C-alpha cells in the first residue's frame, strides 16, 4: 500500500485495542446507503518507476521551444542553489508557523522577505505574500475600499493598460461585494495612459487609481504625474509593479509628491520557474497608515522570555481565524515555498545582481526591437520607453504567424487580437537576460520566415 506503513500485525493490534472487528466498522456512523462503491473511474496505481516514465514522456511534449512570451510570467535564470535550498524538507514540508518556537526558520525567512520587499517598493510594510499578482491586486482593491474613508463610491479607477487577465481576475473577486472598476483608456500610439481620458475623471469619487508600471505593453508610464493626479482627487494609489524592474525604476513609495499607498505585483520573476503559471506569489506592500487593512499573514520581530530576538505571526486579529466574518480577507495561506525561493534569489543576486538582470533584459529588448525594425511586414510604430517587453504590429494575421513560428519551436509572443482588437495584428514580445545574440537573430529569422509562409495581408 503506497505510503501506508501498517503491517497485518499492526492492524490487528489496533483493531483489538479499539474494540472493533474490522476497519469498516469504524465507519458505522455513516448511513449505509451513503457508503461509496469502489472508485471504478480511477485507474490502478503505478509504481514510481512507471509513473516517472509516463511523466517524462509528457514533460517532453512541452519542452524544447524558445520562449519570447512574457505577459506577466518571465523566464529568468534561477541560480541552482535557490531551489536546492528551498526544497529542503524542513522548508518544504513544514506548515504555517503556528508554533513559533518550532518555526523560527520559516518565520525569520519571511521577516527577511518582508524587509527586502519594503526595500524594493520603498514602502513600510509587506505581508508574507498572497496567491499571485492578479488576486493580489484584488486584495489591494478591497483594502483601498476599506481604507479610503473619504470615498463612498465602492469604485476604483483602473488604467486600461493593465494586464487583461488581472482585470478579469479582479472583477471576479471584487464584484461580489458590489465593488466595480472603471477604466481610463490608453493612447494606442503611445501605449500608455491617455491624459485626456484621465482628466475626464477628475473630481469624481473613486477609492483608488490602479497604475501598472511597466504597463501590460511593457511601456513605462509617467507614474509621478499619475500618482499626484490621483492624490489630488482624493484617491489612494495602487501600484502594480514588476519586481525585477524595481532595480531600475523608481520604487512606488517615491512616486510623485507622496508616493503610492499600496504596491502589489507578481513575484514570479524573483527565482520562480514559468511552470505553467504557478505556484507563483503575489507581493503586497503598503504604508504604515494602512497596515491594519493588510490581508494575510504578517511576521513581526519580538523578544522571547530570555530577551532573545525571535519572530512570530503578528496582528492576527485581522485574520479569519479570529475575526471570522469580519476578517480583512478569507485568505489563510501565503505562498510560503515560493517566497522561500524568492528570498534566497534576492539574497544571492543582491541589488547589484538584480539590477544587472534588469538592465540585460532591457537591453535585449532594445536590441531585438532594432533588429525587427528592418524586417518587412513588421511595424514598430515608434521608439517608446519600454522595460523588457514591447508591441509589434504585423501586416499578416498575428495568430497565423505565431502558429507558424511555434512550428519552428519559437514561441514568438502573445497575440493581442482578442483582448485589444483596436491594436490590429499586434504581438507582445518579451526578452530577458536569458536570451543571447544568436537567440535574438534566430527570432528575427523565424519571424521573417513565418511572415513569408503565411503570406497575403490581413491589415
Amino acid at each position, binding site marked *: 500500500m503506497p505510503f501506508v506503513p501498517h503491517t497485518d500485525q499492526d492492524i490487528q493490534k489496533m483493531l483489538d485495542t479499539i474494540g472493533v472487528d474490522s476497519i469498516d466498522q469504524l465507519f458505522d456512523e455513516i448511513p449505509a446507503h451513503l457508503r461509496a462503491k469502489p472508485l471504478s473511474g480511477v485507474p490502478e496505481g503505478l509504481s514510481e518507476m512507471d509513473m516517472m516514465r509516463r511523466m517524462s514522456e509528457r514533460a517532453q511534449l512541452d519542452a524544447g521551444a524558445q520562449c519570447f512570451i512574457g505577459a506577466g510570467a518571465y523566464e529568468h535564470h534561477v541560480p541552482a542553489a535557490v531551489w536546492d535550498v528551498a526544497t529542503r524538507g524542513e522548508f518544504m514540508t513544514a506548515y504555517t508557523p503556528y508554533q513559533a518556537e518550532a518555526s523560527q526558520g520559516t518565520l525569520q525567512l519571511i521577516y527577511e522577505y518582508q524587509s527586502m520587499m519594503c526595500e524594493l517598493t520603498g514602502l513600510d510594510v509587506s505581508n508574507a505574500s498572497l496567491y499571485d499578482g492578479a488576486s493580489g491586486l484584488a486584495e489591494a482593491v478591497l483594502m483601498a475600499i476599506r481604507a479610503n*474613508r473619504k470615498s463612498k463610491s465602492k469604485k476604483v479607477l483602473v488604467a486600461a493598460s493593465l494586464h487583461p487577465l488581472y482585470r478579469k481576475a479582479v472583477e471576479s473577486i471584487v464584484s461580489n461585494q458590489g465593488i466595480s472598476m472603471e477604466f481610463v483608456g490608453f493612447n494606442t500610439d503611445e501605449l500608455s495612459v491617455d491624459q485626456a481620458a484621465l482628466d475626464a475623471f477628475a473630481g469624481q469619487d473613486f477609492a483608488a487609481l490602479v497604475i501598472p508600471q511597466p504597463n501590460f505593453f511593457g511601456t513605462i508610464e509617467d507614474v509621478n504625474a499619475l500618482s499626484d493626479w490621483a492624490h489630488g482627487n482624493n484617491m489612494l494609489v495602487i501600484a502594480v509593479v514588476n519586481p525585477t524592474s524595481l532595480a531600475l525604476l523608481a520604487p512606488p513609495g517615491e512616486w510623485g509628491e507622496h508616493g503610492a499607498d499600496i504596491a502589489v505585483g507578481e513575484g514570479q520573476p524573483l527565482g520562480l520557474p514559468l511552470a505553467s503559471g504557478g505556484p507563483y506569489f503575489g507581493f503586497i506592500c503598503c504604508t504604515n497608515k494602512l497596515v*491594519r487593512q493588510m490581508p494575510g499573514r504578517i511576521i513581526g520581530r519580538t523578544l522571547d522570555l530570555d530577551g532573545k530576538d525571535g519572530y512570530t505571526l503578528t496582528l*492576527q*486579529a*485581522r485574520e479569519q481565524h*479570529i*475575526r471570522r466574518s*469580519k476578517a480583512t480577507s478569507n485568505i489563510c495561506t501565503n505562498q510560503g515555498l515560493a517566497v522561500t525561493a524568492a528570498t534566497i534569489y534576492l539574497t544571492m543576486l543582491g541589488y547589484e545582481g538584480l539590477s544587472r538582470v534588469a538592465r540585460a533584459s532591457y537591453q535585449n529588448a532594445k536590441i531585438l526591437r532594432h533588429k525587427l525594425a528592418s524586417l518587412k511586414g513588421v511595424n514598430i510604430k515608434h521608439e517608446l520607453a519600454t522595460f523588457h517587453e514591447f508591441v509589434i504590429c504585423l501586416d499578416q494575421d498575428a495568430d497565423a504567424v505565431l502558429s507558424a513560428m511555434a512550428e519552428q519551436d519559437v514561441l514568438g509572443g502573445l497575440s493581442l487580437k482578442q483582448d485589444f482588437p483596436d491594436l490590429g495584428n499586434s504581438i507582445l514580445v518579451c526578452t530577458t537576460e536569458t536570451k543571447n545574440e544568436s537567440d535574438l537573430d534566430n527570432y528575427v529569422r523565424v519571424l521573417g520566415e513565418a511572415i513569408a509562409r503565411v503570406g497575403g495581408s490581413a491589415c
Partner: protein
Amino acid sequence: MSNIPGELKYLSSHEWARLEEDGETVTVGITHHAQDLLGDVVFVELPEVGAEIAAGEEAGVVESVKAASDIFAPVGGVVIEINEELEESPELVNSEPYDDGWFFKVKISDAEELASLLDAEAYAEACEAEDH
C-alpha cells in the same frame, strides 16, 4: 472580582457610559471585566471625530493578541472627542479602563437612551450569567 463602578451605565456587551457634568457629553469605554476577558490590548480602532453614531451601532474595535471585539455605542450622538492616547498606549485599556483608558466622547442626542442602559447591579448579573 471585577470592578464595576456604581455610578456608570452599561451594555451587556461590556461597554460603559458616563454622563459628564455638562449633562450632554457621554464618555464611553469598556469595562474592567471586558479588558480582563480580552487580555493585553494591542490596538483600538476609534470612530472619527464628527461621525454620527446610533445607539447599539458598531463604533470601533478593540484588539488583543488573540481576539478582537466590536465596540458598540451605548448611546447615539455625534462623536466630539476620541482618546488619542490609546494609539500610542493601548495598554491603558487594561490598566485604567474607567479613567485614562476611555475610548470616545459623544454629544448625546437623546438623554432618554441613558436610562435604558444597565445599571451596575444589572451588569454584574449579566456578567455572571455569561460565566454560567
